[in-house]
């Protein structure tokens, strides 16, 4: 596609429910990154994919968070048993082989009530 696409754009969920956030990177971009932006905060790195492999998961805040990427394209970030502190904007970015500038999607605003 022309840009990084994320869905849904907004998600409201009840505490304790699981959620899945989707990222469709720019076509041909093999590197994909997930970030979290909490209200009034900067962007926090979560996980990085090169192809379908995740060489760096160091930013995932707990074992409730996981991510996968299939076919070297779409990625899904899953948050299990959501908590109110998980409320944030989740941003995805992609880069050509991780060797060029990264382009961000619009983000998914997650609200846990």
């Amino acid at each position, binding site marked *: 596609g022309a840009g990084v696409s994320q869905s849904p754009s907004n998600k409201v969920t009840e505490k304790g429910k699981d959620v899945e956030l989707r990222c469709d990177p720019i076509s041909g971009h093999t590197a994909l990154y997930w970030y979290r932006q909490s209200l009034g905060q*900067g962007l926090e790195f979560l996980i990085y994919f090169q192809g379908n492999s995740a060489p760096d998961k160091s930013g995932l805040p707990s074992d409730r968070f996981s991510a996968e990427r299939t076919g070297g394209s779409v990625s899904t970030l899953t948050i299990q048993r959501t908590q109110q502190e998980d409320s944030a904007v989740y941003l995805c*970015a992609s880069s050509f082989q991780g060797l060029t500038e990264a382009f961000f999607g619009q983000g998914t605003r997650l609200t846990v009530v």
Partner: protein
Amino acid sequence: QQQVKQSPQSLIVQKGGISIINCAYENTAFDYFPWYQQFPGKGPALLIAIRPDVSEKKEGRFTISFNKSAKQFSLHIMDSQPGDSATYFCAASDITDSWGKFQFGAGTQVVVTP
């Protein structure tokens, strides 16, 4: 611990004025320093970036100044316009790790008054 420190948190500038945002980093392995601009409800968009082999880079009204010895870099917005009102984030990465794996500053909200 925050590896990239950004200041000020917010600034107000008159139309036509100069906006200056500063960042300092700790990790000497960082070798790629972009600035991202973010409007409400949108994702960050790359504005301008610099590598440490140059001390300054200019693109239109936007200039990055880079001081490797001080581990500092700054963004200057010349002739600020109301359309520049946004949040600006500095970032840093080690491209031998991955270009897009950034440490971000906390952001600066810029308001340009007419």
